C-alpha cells in the first residue's frame, strides 16, 4: 500500500509549526480522510472541523498546498503525492488550534445585513406566486454552503484585515441573494456602499476561483450589486439633486 506525507500545521492562538505525518493512501481518498487517519492513530488531539464529508456543509475549509479548499472534496489522486501535502488553517481568520480558526466574525457580519423583507402576499391565502425564472436568478447565490473560503482568499480580508469595513464576498453573495429575491422589497444599497464596504472589492475574482459551489461570485453577485449601488450613489443627476437638497441621500 502506498503512503504519503502530510505536513500539517499544529499550533494554537500564539504559535505553531508544520509537522510531518505519514499515512497509508487508498483508492479515492480525500485530504480529510488522511487527516482522520492521522488523528485516529498518531495525533488524537489534532483539531479539525468537519461534518457532512460530502461538500454540503462547508465545515472542513483549509489551505491544501496553499489553495483554499474543502478537505472533503480534495482527492489525493489530484495532488502530487511525491512531495508532502501541506495542510494549513485558513489565514484570514485568527487561529484557534491546528486546522480550526475563529470564524465568528462571519456570523456577526451576516447579522449586520438587513434581513429578508417580503412584499405583501399575492393571494388571499397568504401565499405568493413566483416565476421559476425569477427564482433561478437568486438560486445560484443560495447554493452557498458558508465555507468562508471566499473570505479566506479575499485580499481585503486576508492581507489588509479590513474586517471592520468590508463584509467580504460571502456576504455580498448573501446581499445579492436578498436583493435579487423575487419577493424582497428592502433596499440595501446605501448600507452596501457604506458599512459593508462594497467599494473595497476590486474584482480580482479570487473568490470565484475558490468557490466549491462554483458560484460566479464576482460577475453574478458583486458586479451587479456595484451597479445598483452606483445607480443610487453615483448617478450624476441624482448627485445634482442631492446637492440642491432634493434627492434622498
Amino acid at each position, binding site marked *: 500500500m502506498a503512503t504519503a506525507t502530510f505536513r500539517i500545521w499544529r499550533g494554537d492562538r500564539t504559535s505553531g509549526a508544520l509537522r510531518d505525518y505519514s499515512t497509508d493512501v487508498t483508492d479515492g481518498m480525500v485530504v480529510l480522510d488522511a487527516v482522520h487517519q492521522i488523528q485516529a492513530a498518531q495525533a*488524537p488531539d489534532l*483539531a479539525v472541523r468537519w461534518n457532512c464529508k460530502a461538500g454540503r*456543509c462547508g465545515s472542513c475549509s483549509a489551505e491544501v498546498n496553499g489553495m483554499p479548499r474543502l478537505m472533503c472534496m480534495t482527492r489525493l489522486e489530484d495532488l502530487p503525492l511525491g512531495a508532502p501535502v501541506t495542510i494549513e488553517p485558513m489565514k484570514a481568520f485568527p487561529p484557534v488550534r491546528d486546522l480550526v480558526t475563529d470564524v465568528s466574525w462571519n*456570523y456577526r457580519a451576516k447579522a449586520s445585513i438587513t434581513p429578508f423583507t*417580503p412584499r405583501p402576499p399575492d393571494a388571499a391565502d397568504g401565499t405568493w406566486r413566483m416565476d421559476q425564472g425569477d427564482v433561478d436568478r437568486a438560486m445560484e447565490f443560495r447554493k452557498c454552503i458558508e465555507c468562508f473560503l471566499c473570505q479566506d482568499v479575499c485580499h481585503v480580508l486576508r492581507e489588509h484585515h479590513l474586517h471592520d469595513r468590508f463584509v467580504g464576498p460571502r456576504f455580498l453573495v448573501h446581499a445579492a441573494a436578498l436583493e435579487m429575491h423575487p419577493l424582497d422589497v428592502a433596499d440595501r444599497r446605501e448600507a452596501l456602499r457604506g458599512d459593508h464596504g462594497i467599494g473595497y472589492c476590486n474584482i480580482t475574482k479570487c473568490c470565484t476561483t475558490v468557490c466549491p459551489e462554483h458560484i460566479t461570485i464576482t460577475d453574478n453577485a458583486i458586479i451587479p450589486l456595484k451597479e445598483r449601488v452606483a445607480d443610487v450613489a453615483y448617478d450624476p443627476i441624482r448627485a445634482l439633486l442631492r446637492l440642491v437638497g432634493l434627492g434622498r441621500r
Partner: protein
Amino acid sequence: MSGGGPIDTIEHDVLVIGAGGAGLRAAIAASAAGVSVGVVCKSLLGKAHTVMAEGGVAAALANVDDRDSWTVHFADTMRGGQHLNDPRMAELHAREAPERVRELEAWGALFDRTKDGRILQRNFGGHRYPRLAHVGDRTGLEMIRTLQDHGIHAGITFHMECTVTRLLTDGGRVVGAFGYERERGRFRVYRAGAVVLATGGIGRAYSITSNSWEYTGDGQALAYEAGAELIDMEFVQFHPTGMVWPPSVRGILVTEGVRGEGGILLNKDGRRFMFDDIPPAYQNQTADNEDEGWRYTQGDKGARRPPELLTRDHVARCINREIKAGRGSPHGGVFLDIAWIKQRIKNAPEHIKKKLPGMYHQFMELAGVDITQEPMEVGPTTHYMMGGVRVDAESQMSTVPGLYAAGECAAGLHGANRLGGNSLSDLLVFGKRAGDDAARFAREQGRVRTVAPAQVDAAAREALAPFDRTPAGDGNNPYQVQHTLQGMMQDLVGIVRTKQEMERALEGLAALRAREARVAVTGNREYNPGWHTALDLSSLLCVSEAVTRSALARTESRGAHFREDHPEKDVALGHVRHVVKRGPDGAMQLERAPVTPPSPELLRIIEEQR
C-alpha cells in the same frame, strides 16, 4: 488535568440543544412567545445534518395534484410506519405541515415553482401524490439557511461549538444542562426553565452511515439518564441508496430524488429487480410494468408509482438481497441508473444536472462518475432513527417535566419506518410545537435559583476523567473504541438481525462499556477531538444498547426492523411498542406498552385510504 476551574453559568428561559431544523424551529417559536432563548450546538451554526436533506419536505399543499390532502398524507404516513405511529402525531403532522412550509417561504425560502408560480412538489417513496416541496436536491440547505437567517434576527442567543454532557434536574424536573465549549474546553452550566432536545440521530453507532460525527445519540442518552422513556428504538432506518465507492465516501447519501426523477435499480445482470418483490399492502398502488412507472415519474396522474419508490425499508432489503445473492455491482452495491432516461427525453444530461445538481457534483468529484452517462453504485446506509424520546403528541414534552424533544431525537411520528420527506416536515411541525410549549412551561414554572452543586461536580469529574488515565495503553484510544462499536453494531444489529447475533452484541457492549471506563486522552482541553470522541462514547453505548435490547424483544419483522429468525409479522406485536428506561438498579429496563389506537375518525380515514 483534574479540577474544572471556574464554571460560567448562563441563563435562559428556554434552552434548546441542537441547531438543526428542529432546534432552530423550536427556538424561533419560543422566542416569538416572548421568552429568552439559548441554542447550544456541537458545530457551527448552519452545519447540522438538516443541511444534507436532499429530496424535499412533505406537505399536502396539493399544488401539483389536487387529490392530495392532509388525510391522504396521514394515511400514507401510517401505512409507511406499519401503524406503529402515534396516530395523533401523524395527524398533527399532516394537518400542520402545509402551513409550516408556507411560513418558510414567508421567511425567504425559495422552492422550485409550478407553471402557475406556486411551490412545486415531487414524487417520493410511499407518498401517494407528488408532495415534496423542494429546491433541486438541496432542500435541506435551503431550509436550514432560511431558519438560521430568520433566527439570527429573532433575539436568540447561539452558543456554537458547545456540547452538553448532562441534564441537570431538581425534584424530578429538568432545570438545566452541563457541558463544555470546544474552543477552550471550559465547562458551562446552563440554567433554564425548560430544555428542548433537538440533537438528531444515532448514525455514528454504525460504520456505514450518512450521518456526520455529531450524531452520537446525545439527546436520547441525555433524556434516558434524566429518567425519560425512549420508545421504538429497534427501528433504525437504513436508507437504500448510499454511495459504496470509493471506500472513503461509503455511506454518503444518494437522494431518493434520483428515483423520483425516474432513476431505476439494476443488478449486475441488468435486471430491474424491484419488480420481483412488491409487498401486498402496496400492490394496488405500484406499477406492474416499466412504462407505467416511467409515466408516473413524469406526472401522469393515471399511472402508478414504480417499485423503486416503495418504502425505504423494503427497497433497502431488496438491495441487500441482491448483493448477498451475488448479483451486486463490482464494489458491493447495486446499480442506480438515471442516465437511461435519455431513451425517453431529449437533453437528458441537462435535465439531470438541473434536477439533481448536487448528485451530479457529488459523483463527479468524489467518484469520478458522470451520472448523466453511467449508472451509480449504491447500497444501504444507516440514515435515520425512528425511535427516540417518548413525547406527548401535542406538546412534545417527554415523560420528565420540563424536558422536551423534537425532530429525529423524538419518537412517535414515524412508527416502524419513516417516509422520505417526512423528517423535514416533522422538524418544522414539532419543532414549533416544542418551542411553543417549552415557552409556556418556562414562563409558568420559572427557573430554579440554583442547581445542585453535587450534580455539577459529578458532571465535571466525569468529563475530566479521561485526562486522569494513563494514555496510550492498549485498547484505550477513544477512536478505537468508537470504531469497534461501529463495526459491531453494523455486523450484529444491522439491516438483517438474529437473536444469536444480538446476544453477542449485548456481550460486546458490556465489554465496550468496560473499555470506555479506561479510555484515556492526550493533550489539553482546548479543541481536543480525542477528548470529545471519548465523551461521546457514553451516549453511543447507551443508544446502541437500547437499539439492541428493543430489537431482541421484537420477535417479528416489521418496517425497518427485520429478523431473519422471525421473518414474518406477528399480528400481536403490531399493537405493542417497546419502552426503554433506566431501572431503579441503574440497569436498562425494557417494557412493553400498547400502541395508542387511532380515534374513530382517523380509523375511518385509514380504512378509506387502504
